[in-house]
């Protein structure tokens, strides 16, 4: 599904290096959690995978479904099944949720060779998927994310995930800003979306999300590199001990 090899990424125009040789392999249907201290490069990785501008890949490769990911524009990647749930979702005043989702869903469906949904089918799909993630129905009448609370914005990301049915979903701190009940509902939503052909990359700081969504692998990203990978137990250990022991190890391994 996704093969990242020795990826080096800088801020555009000769800025500092953020990812410093990151490698990761994700197979179809797997759930990978990525943890790591603030500023270690987690969102940068997510952004580079989704195709945000402002970064420069200086070396390494990312192969997604057998093709060089960097050959594709952001919107092509999305149509090929990559979905990023933003850490900070963007407000779009004047763009209605329904227009936004109709455009998005139809673009993706067209690319997959599926028929355009009728107005009725589309409305029903919106209704069902909103219920799946516990999105307040009144939010669908509003402009995208405009004036949404922090938690509503995060739920809206998962709602869009459910609508677009991606093959690789990247969740960047979707759990932050969610209350305890919302966390459970959103996690159940995500669990309901797990498929043998759908992989998840879940970026989080907290074990509690992983209590609900059981990852197949946990990776720790420190200073632009994955310094440790393991099973779900690694997340428990991080929760107890923090990252210091890993930072020391990574320094040692560099030396």
């Amino acid at each position, binding site marked *: 599904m996704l093969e990242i090899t020795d990826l080096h990424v800088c801020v555009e125009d000769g800025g500092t290096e953020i990812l410093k040789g990151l490698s990761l392999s994700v197979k179809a249907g797997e759930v990978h959690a990525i943890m790591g201290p603030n500023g270690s490069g987690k969102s940068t990785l997510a952004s580079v995978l989704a195709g945000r501008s402002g970064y420069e890949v200086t070396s390494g490769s990312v192969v997604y479904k057998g093709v060089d990911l960097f050959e594709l524009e952001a919107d092509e990647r999305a149509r090929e099944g990559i979905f990023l749930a933003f850490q900070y979702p963007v407000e*779009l005043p004047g763009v209605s949720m329904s227009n*936004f989702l109709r*455009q998005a869903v139809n673009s993706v469906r067209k690319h997959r060779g599926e028929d355009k949904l009728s107005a009725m089918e589309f409305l029903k799909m919106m209704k069902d998927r909103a219920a799946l993630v516990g999105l307040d129905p009144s939010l669908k009448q509003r402009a995208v994310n405009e004036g949404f609370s922090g938690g509503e914005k995060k739920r809206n990301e998962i709602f869009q995930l459910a609508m677009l049915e991606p093959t690789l979903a990247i969740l960047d701190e979707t759990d932050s800003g969610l209350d305890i009940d919302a966390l459970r509902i959103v996690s159940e939503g995500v669990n309901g979306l797990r498929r043998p052909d759908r992989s998840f990359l879940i970026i989080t700081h907290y074990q509690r999300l992983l209590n609900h969504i059981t990852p197949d692998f946990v990776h720790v990203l420190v200073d632009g590199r994955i310094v440790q990978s393991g099973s779900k137990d690694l997340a428990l250990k991080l929760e107890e001990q923090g990252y210091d022991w890993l930072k020391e190890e990574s320094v040692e391994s560099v030396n």
Partner: protein
Amino acid sequence: MVMEKRFIAAQQVLHTNGRNGSAGIIESLRANGLASFISAGFPLPREEQWKYTPVRKWLRDDFQFTGTSDPGDVQLPELISSTKDYTVVCVNGVFKPELSRLPGSELAITVTSLQAALHDEPDLISGYLRRTNPGAENPFLSLNMAFLSDGLYIHILADTILDKPLYITDIVMGPELFFHQPRILIVAENRSQATIIELRDRAGHRGAAHNAGIFENTVTQIHVSASSNIDYYHVYDRGAGARLVRTLNVYQERDTTFSTNEVTLSGSLVRKNLNFLPDGEGCQTQLNGFYLAGSGMHVDIHTLVDHAEPHCNSKELFKGIIDNNATAVFNGRVLVRQDAQQTNAYQSNRNVLLSKSAHMYSKPELEIYADDVKCSHGATTGQLDDEALFYLRSRGISFPTARRMLLEAFVSDVCALIRVEELRLNVEERVSTALAGMHIKLLSDGR
């Protein structure tokens, strides 16, 4: 004066011959107009009011001043043929009752030609026509008067509440380089209410819309008598190449509400002089609008709200999208005179530039001589938000579609202020078409 001479000569040819000795009221109005046009002349490049709009550039053609006398089949704008509301159709500025759908006799409203009105009530009507808001004089206004022959007069009698919107449209049929100077006078008597739409669309005759060479110098005067409420709209979409200089003069008596929404969608030159004089206490004035300055267009909006009396509010919102090689100008003058205490005046102008070769000159001009007032203004000019574009693209939406969606969203709040739903939908459609026609070269990275 070489340029002016051609216009003066044309005026002489047109209007001296028909004169049968006795100088009637129209002749005297024309003579006044001509005299002030001769003394003013067209604006010179350095004139402050025309600094960014060197209007002479668009006046060099060898214009003709009369339209086709027998237009034959008239093609009405789609909206005019489909609406169930009232319609007033003019051809070359002349009212055509046979093409119009007027309110029934149970409503106290008169729609007639200006010529007939001047004939019936010369003193009253000429009094209105001569009236200009202070500071609103301009040579185009005089030129329009110098060529006055007919026009449209709408008289809404006291206590009349128009139950449906009334669309005015003026179809232009004439030579290619037609210099067209229509005039509309609307008088709303005390406690009346109406929604009036002035639509200048590309429809012509037998479907062949060729407006590319026309120059329109239009004047609309609206007199709003005490306690009346007029909701007015102006939609300009004559098509590529058409030129417009428009003067709107609104005079408000006490306790009146007047709002306009000015939609500009096409044309090579669009210059609007929008003048408002709330001349009594308790007036509400709203000026909204947006302009889509497509490639090569020049749009210049000059507004003047002259607060002379206390306890009045004015609210102004103009937005613009400016493409490649297009220029837009917004000059919003708000004058709060010494007696106009407790004035609330708010103004906002926001623009999006789509290219490095797009130009925007935005200038708020607040002149405040009263001390107990609330006035604010804001002007912004920027580009489309990269984060918003990325968000849409990350959902699979192609770049051109994402851009169009954000631009539509940008003007959507001004569209939402159109209270006539049929008109709003029509305008939104025109916006989509106009935006799709913008072949925008992208600023940052040529995506």
